[in-house]
């Protein structure tokens, strides 16, 4: 259970990084990536995944 940022769609705006309750998001190679080992899709924290809710590009973050 984890989410993935589609690098080609990421604008590197960094909005998702501070919202992640698991500190699973970091910058790498000009865009951001989610550490699948840390990602819980926000279950137990929030109703919806925070990175998807704040991301300005619809479809940029997907379930893997």
């Amino acid at each position, binding site marked *: 259970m984890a989410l993935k940022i589609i690098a080609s769609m990421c604008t590197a*705006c960094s909005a998702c990084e501070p919202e992640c309750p698991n500190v699973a998001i970091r910058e790498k190679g000009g865009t951001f990536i989610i550490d699948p080992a840390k990602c819980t899709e926000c279950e137990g924290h929030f109703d919806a995944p925070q990175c998807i809710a*704040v991301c300005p590009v619809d479809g940029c973050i997907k379930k893997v």
Partner: protein
Amino acid sequence: MSNTAFVSIGDLRRGRQALSPVAQILETAASGGCSTSGGEGKASCGSSGGPDDMPAEIWEKVKNHPCYSEEAHHHYARMHVAVAPACNIQCNYCNRKYDCSNESRPGVVSQKLTPDQAVKKVVAVASEIPQMTVLGIAGPGDALANPKKTFDTFRMLQEQAPDIKLCLSTNGLALPQMVDEICKYNIDHVTITINMVDPEVGAKIYPWIFWEHRRVTGIEAATILHKQQMLGLEMLTARGVLTKINSVLIPGINDEHLYEVNREVKKRGAFLHNIMPLISEAEHGTVFGLTGQRGPSAQELKAVQDACMGGANLMRHCRQCRADAVGLLGEDRSDEFTLDKIDAMEVVYDLDKRRAYQEKVEVERAAQHEAKLAALDAVQDDDGVDADMKVLVAVATEGHGKVNQHFGHATEFQIFEVSKAEALFVGHRRVDLYCQGGYGEDEQLPSIVGAINDCHAVLVSKIGACPRDELKAAGIEPVDAYAHEFIEKAALSWFADYRERIARGEISHEPRGDARIRQGAFTAAA
């Protein structure tokens, strides 16, 4: 609505000339006098005004700020550092891939900076450009959606370049929570983008906001945003921070509604209201760009601005500049200060040199002011021509408040509305460079004519024979007789001459048509 009117004498004077419905209503309601309501003794006398028009402490705050003082923008420069890429709302006129086309358009090529890099860049620019007096954080996202990066930058700058004024711009959603932090860094100026005061209108502009860990949409989103914006504005006013309200004019969505926005923000102590045209090209990929929502024409924009003149002080010299712009408004020297170039520069931050330069600028400004008063005296004679006549003139300038640019070198024209009472700056028009490498580009001329088609004359330092003839054919008089004179004096002198020619029966006064607002923000000096 409060019963108190917030109208200054200066605004009234101009409002009467505009004769717009809103101005008339406000005029009727006005009790007169320079309003000091809205907290902290902040008066509301013209942003285009000088030291005589506002209390000394306000003048001190705005006199070197090119965005807050129309007069200052001829002499002082600003820069933005792009340290704040994240945003907490989505606007239909903004595509985050291209960043925001309307507010602080950084484009895809700009470098995002860390706070350390930003401070280094500011110090380098300030050493190179002594008239750079203001540093703003305007995105590319929202300054307050990136609080750590924004305030880290401010903190370091306060230590390393204490004479530089700091300001920021925000959509207002996170503003109330950040007001205390803003005041900590002596930030005198905050810009809030407010496009509506009615959530029904807001729902057509904002598809969603990110609020308390949720994506909120529709009327609910617009209601929250509206409440936060109003609360934030009131809190800043109570603390004596000057506020500028930016509004994007979206025809058919908020055009008439902006009169109400103007009243509401003025009521809450806004210092300045900046009404800007929507920029929406399909290639920007914004919702409005893709749905074919058009921007306003030059005269549509001017009509709303004129109607709002009786409300809050109106800013008309905004260039909708990029979040990483450097230089005078209307110019962009950011290419000279890329990270690798800064690394190669030897930077000495010389406070005395900066002060000495700025003192020289003050002398020049005083001379400009005197020239304007003398020229105003000269147009007062009764010449039998319509005393209420008002015409627009376009001016080519490279700064210092003078008519000092060759027609072929102009990338924008400043527009002044001239009457017997004043030469009032009412806006600017971006154009494509006519002269490229010494040769005029004939295909550029029609677009320049289109951009200044509502003007009777264009004042330049010099102009070639070809464009001269074509401008004349289009009914715009090319004028190089006032080269290197101060703009207001030049405009008023031309106006006096124009009236004389009418009085002598040499020419007849004909109304002009509308003009086109060039799409796309200023990107680089060509």
